[in-house]
């Protein structure tokens, strides 16, 4: 399945990308996707922690990603 992944802030700097269409070989939870990301972009290990949003809403670690989902990696926010 293919998911659209969005990168922001420090994560964008580390990956060098604003977005990427990633092809996953199996269904994944957010937890599994995070491990997959850390393998693909080892620099992410330096980040404080990050959250995930699927289709513009925060999701938990056990959320199952679906085909065509838009998955955003949310590094620590600092608005305001």
């Amino acid at each position, binding site marked *: 399945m293919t998911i659209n992944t969005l990168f922001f802030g420090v994560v964008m700097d580390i990956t060098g990308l604003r977005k990427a269409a990633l092809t996953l070989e199996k269904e994944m939870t957010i937890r599994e996707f995070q491990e997959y990301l850390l393998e693909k972009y080892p620099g992410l290990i330096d980040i404080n922690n990050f959250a995930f949003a699927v289709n513009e809403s925060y999701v938990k670690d056990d959320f199952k990603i679906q085909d065509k989902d838009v998955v955003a990696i949310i590094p620590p*926010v600092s*608005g305001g």
Partner: protein
Amino acid sequence: MEDRISVLLTPKKLNQQKCYDFVQDASCGGIVTFTGTVRNHTSGKEVKQLEFSAYTSMAVKELIKIAERALKRFDILKIALHHAEGLLQVGDIPVIIAVSSSHRKAAFEACEYAINTLKETVPIWKKEFFEDGEVWVNAHP
């Protein structure tokens, strides 16, 4: 509920009067406002400028969620949450939150709740520019 909420994420200069005028109402007795301003230093280092970037579509949704929760949780009349994107200089205004209410205690509580929650949940990122480099705030342990 929508006519009691004003949410804005904009590359333009924020306008305090606009926020005030939105929340002001003949039936309200008081308005509490929080206005963020860009400081000239962070941990003793001089800040040259800031840049805010956002996951715009989601950030707007999260701002609306905060406004809706504030309206449910506190006895307030109207709320405005405006946030800036892009480059800001020292003294510029990244955020304005304005709340009107009959009861000032509720307005204070709702305004503080809104800015605290905004800083925790809204996908907006601040990069600080110093003389000798730049850094994404909160990014690293």
